[in-house]
């Protein structure tokens, strides 16, 4: 009976009162007491999250983890990465095994809804679309040429459903070969078991960059779907979701205002010296209490930018034209340049 009593009382004891910050977040309290952020990433996708030869993680998704760690803990290196496949990712997030999912996850209704996966999505960090990659030598020019052919696809992804929908629309019969991890999927494709592999176009480009003969594979022009890839947290902790959302908006706002990793120190001294720069002073935490409202340190935006640079720098470094992936900014430009990257006002 003592054991029983302990079991019954255990959860009550864990609900300790928060400190006086006014922001109630068990998750943020847990991350702060642990001293590091546990971030779920894909781990095998060049440009997004990939383990470099020296053992360090790099990529756009990884930079999001670093920026959030810098904003919350003041140190971008305090991140523990967990590689998750598409099927594990939501269970890992829901069970609290990871604090944050930064793993090229498409935001959808059923994933967001409380009656579905119950996630809370942060701002989209990459607007993508589903594409199809085929060997150039196969002579396949469009989806209709894939009739009766096996197509490799990773199971448990929106890709799988989009493919089924699109092929049903076109009335094209095909064989979906589903694999649990992206490595298996691309191994089967490179083993020529399927004549095509379908995924987000960014992922296809990323994987192709690691192929031995990248030029022998081409993306079909058709874009099958909208894939807004967004970081996510559980929707049971709104304060943590807000902190996450605004840490990422800060990176986008920084690009809009021309703050970079290199000049943010100078901008901070400038803001401190000049009381007329009210927007910048509030943004960098010189005045106001934006950080406190979110339950973050007042200089969270400064720390995040200092750690990974602004959104444009993150994009260029990991996936942009100068990187191995050679992706154009396209719709991932700032709204002022006609793109979709838009941070709401820091007010």
């Amino acid at each position, binding site marked *: 009976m003592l054991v029983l009593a302990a*079991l019954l009382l255990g959860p009550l004891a864990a609900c300790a009162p928060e400190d006086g910050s006014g922001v109630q977040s068990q998750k943020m309290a847990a991350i702060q007491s642990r001293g590091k952020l546990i971030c779920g990433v894909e781990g095998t996708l060049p440009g997004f999250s990939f383990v470099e030869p020296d053992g360090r993680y790099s990529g756009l998704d990884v930079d999001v983890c670093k920026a959030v760690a810098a904003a919350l803990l003041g140190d971008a290196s305090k991140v523990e990465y967990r590689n998750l496949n598409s099927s594990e990712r939501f269970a890992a997030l829901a069970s609290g095994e990871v604090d944050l999912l930064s793993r090229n996850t498409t935001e959808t209704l*059923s994933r967001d809804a409380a009656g579905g996966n119950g996630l809370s999505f942060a701002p989209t960090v990459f607007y993508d679309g589903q594409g199809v990659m085929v060997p150039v030598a196969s002579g396949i020019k469009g989806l209709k040429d894939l009739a009766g052919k*096996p197509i490799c696809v990773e199971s448990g992804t929106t890709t*799988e459903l989009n493919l*089924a929908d699109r092929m049903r629309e076109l009335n094209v019969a095909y064989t979906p070969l589903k694999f649990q991890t992206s490595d298996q999927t691309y191994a089967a494709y490179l083993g020529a078991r399927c004549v095509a592999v379908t995924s987000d176009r960014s992922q296809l480009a990323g994987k192709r960059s690691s192929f031995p003969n990248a030029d022998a594979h081409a993306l079909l022009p058709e874009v099958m779907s909208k894939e807004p890839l967004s970081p996510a947290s559980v929707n049971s902790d709104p304060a943590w979701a807000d902190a996450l959302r605004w840490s990422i908006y800060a990176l986008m706002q920084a690009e809009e205002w021309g703050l970079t990793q290199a000049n943010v120190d100078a901008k901070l001294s400038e803001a401190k010296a000049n009381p007329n720069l009210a927007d910048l002073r509030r943004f960098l935490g010189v005045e106001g209490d934006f950080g406190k409202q979110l339950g973050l340190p007042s200089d969270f935006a400064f720390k995040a930018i200092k750690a990974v640079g602004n959104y444009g720098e993150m994009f260029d470094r990991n996936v942009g034209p100068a990187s191995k992936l050679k992706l154009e900014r396209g719709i991932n430009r700032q709204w002022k340049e006609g793109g979709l990257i838009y941070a709401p006002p820091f007010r």
Partner: protein
Amino acid sequence: MGSNLTPPQLRRGGLNGGDNPGLSQPPWWRNRLLIPWLVQALVGFVLLLLVAFLLGNLVRNLTAAGLLLSWRWLGQPAGFDIAESVLPFQAEMPYWRGLLAGLGNTLRAVSCGLIGATVVGTLAGMANFSSNGLLRRLVRVYVELVRNIPLLLQLVFWYFVVFLSLPNGLAALQGPGVVLAKSGLYLAGFHNGLHWVGPQLVNDVWQAPLRLSVEFCALLVGLVVYSGAYIAEVVRGGIASVPAGQWEAASSLGLGWLASIRHVVIPQALPVIVPGLNTQYISLAKNSSLAVAVGYADLYAVAETTLNQTGRAVEVIILLLGTYLVLDLLISALMNALNQFVRIKER
């Protein structure tokens, strides 16, 4: 100490109390009949409380998370395709049809695997007692090699290394009535009634009355080779349990090796072999869920996709657990019946 040696019946006042009306009954806490029952009842009660607490906890937390068990999703359209299926399935059919199709695929792999592994295991087990030293050593190498490598690795080996390096088209391996290509195993069979048709190459694609996908072949070969090694050991143990005198008696009757093992040794070894086989058969059924690693759409693979699309993790896992439990209990019941049948009947 002396009292401990008295037969228990004599000390149970309740039983022989009638013979000694003068003796008073022992108090209830020294009643040897009552106390064990009380202890059992108490333990049972605590166990029930614990289970009730855990279940209540589950339901409470699931309700709080808005995830209370619901089965309505089973009737919704699945929206994904399955590469191959014994039962007909299309994307617009409901989830339960998809899961049923997956179960059909699992049963196909398990039933073929059971037969194959039994044949391989029995032959290899018998070969341990062959007079041919080379054969004996080859069997030892097979058993030791296969038993000591994880099944997942073996499946990945069979699929990615062996089957995916097969040639396609004209270069495929061809035999009378059978063609083995990267796209599958093609077998001759009856077509449109009584026409015996072999595999034919049409537009560089093989066609035949019976086609097995390489995913199925890789899974089947992997399971047969792996379980075959264990069954070989069970068979070897069974045969070794038959006294050497039986072999000598058989040969003194003029029976050859095969006749001795078939008519004298195996009938006596079966009662030892069958319980061991039961364990191996159950393992094989459970191991079939590794099919997802080689892209075969078994129950587990379909359930995983379903779980991802619906977000109904608890329900899907309960379904999976229940199905594999029933499958294994069925195998076990059949094997127990067989065990009764092969038992040595003492006359």
